[in-house]
């Protein structure tokens, strides 16, 4: 069988002088590097944030868990259309003519009653496109980033349910 021929690794023979300059270079460069490293050991104070004990507050712009203030929602479906991953599920019925007239905080009349406003936050890609198209600014990204769940269905937030309404006060942007 023909053996695979590989190029031989050729190294030029070391001269006496090169041998010692190599050693000298190694010592000098390692010394210079160690000087910098030692400066970091003693001269620089640690920057690590010890997470569960101390937390950094995220900047105001941060995009984290979504929150919909359903009282201000007019069910215009713009967020669901803008969403690139289709994780917003909305259904609404027409409001009765006899029912008392409701207005959002910005003054636009509510003509549709929400029957479902659910966001699958496990699918959400946190791009922020839904919040920017919202005409009444009721859908916002909060700065609340600690919302891990034990089951995947726990990430489906039904914003009409009272327990999710309860964290309305939690870290909502000004």
């Amino acid at each position, binding site marked *: 069988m023909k053996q695979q021929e590989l190029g031989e690794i050729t190294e030029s023979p070391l001269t006496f002088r090169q041998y010692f300059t190599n050693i000298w270079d190694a010592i000098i460069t*390692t010394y210079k*590097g160690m000087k*910098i490293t030692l400066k970091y050991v003693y001269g620089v104070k640690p920057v690590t944030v010890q997470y569960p004990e101390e937390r950094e507050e995220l*900047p105001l712009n941060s995009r984290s868990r979504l929150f919909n203030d359903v009282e201000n929602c007019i069910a215009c479906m713009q967020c669901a259309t803008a969403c*690139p991953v289709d994780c917003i599920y909305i259904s609404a019925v027409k409001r009765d003519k006899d029912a008392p007239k409701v207005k959002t905080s910005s003054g636009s009349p509510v003509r549709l009653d929400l029957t479902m406003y659910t966001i699958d936050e496990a699918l959400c890609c946190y791009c922020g496109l839904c919040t920017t198209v919202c005409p009444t600014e009721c859908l916002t990204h909060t700065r609340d980033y600690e919302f891990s769940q034990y089951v995947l269905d726990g990430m489906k937030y039904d914003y009409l349910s009272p327990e999710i309404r309860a964290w309305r006060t939690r870290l909502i942007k000004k």
Partner: protein
Amino acid sequence: MQEKHYKEEKLKTELLTVSMGPQHPATHGVLRVEIKTDSEIVAEATPHLGYLHRCMEKHSENLDYRAVIPFTDRLDYLAAMNMELTYVMAVEKMLKTEIPVRAEYIRVIVSELQRIASHLLFFGTYAIDLGAFSPFLYVFQEREFILRIFEELSGARLLYNYIWIGGVWNDITDDQIKRIGTFCDTLDENLKKYHTLVGENKIFISRTADVGIINKDVAFDYGATGPILRGSGVNWDLRKNRPYGLYPKLSFNIPVGTGEKGKVGDCWDRYRVRVLEMHESIKIIKQCLAGIEAGPIMGKVPKIIKVPKGEIYMRTECARGELGYHLVSDGGKKPYRLKVKSSCFTHVSMLPAIAPGMMIADLVATIGSIDIVLGEIDR
């Protein structure tokens, strides 16, 4: 008498096939390199791709033009700003939108900051590949500042969705401009320090110099771009040679590999080109911070974007090389076709050409110096 089954004529040597990856710390993601080895020497290296394929191009055919931007972020997640910028510029060129000057300035600032962040990550992980751990932590401190600035600007740390069709999403404040300015000064100093720590080290030099040499001819044959091509001694930068955006107004140099420690086009040259590029980016950012003008940040864009019928190929200099988007429109709300030309893909395809004859440890150094991101290769 029993016959010997190990006759001398029957003895033979054969090449051993080893799979490096898909879960291997040195392959930077889910790249699998099938190596045929003769003891310690690589005889053949074949990269296998497709472990991170997410159908990005097909997906974007079903989304409107604005909703594609978050998907382009996820191509090269380490240089997401540059990815967005190229796509957005392609759409803007089709729409013939005028972009406000302030937005142009902000775009250059963020894309150069992103280039620095990406190269810093290369610096750290390359040092880890070659056995030095502490430089990784030092450069991550610097990178953390950039990510924090991006978080304040755009709201996210990695996948920004910041550059929009017509401008940028959020304005930059005077305070942030000042902070970026001071950061640039300290980074300029620190980078020199890090270079003495890593790049001038004798161990690092003997691991990288004369290793993984990519000739000018090989680089041209395979269509290499970016730091790989410049490391091979070719002066080619799209920011200078095919200028776009604000770059014609700015003055900066293009670092080219010179073979300072070994031959032209070795791993050390590619490392050095990236470090020098960071210095040049700092220069660009400083010019932009000085020249930024007050004004609007969003141009006039229709609410529902309908791109006129036609096609365009837009390319820019990304952190890893030339990134191109071939956008075909049929006049509707969605792109008809969006083809991404990724630089990492061409760089990975060079591996079979340069790998034979080198040691396995040198292959790790070579893959590290090519600096690939699998998200961009597989898309």
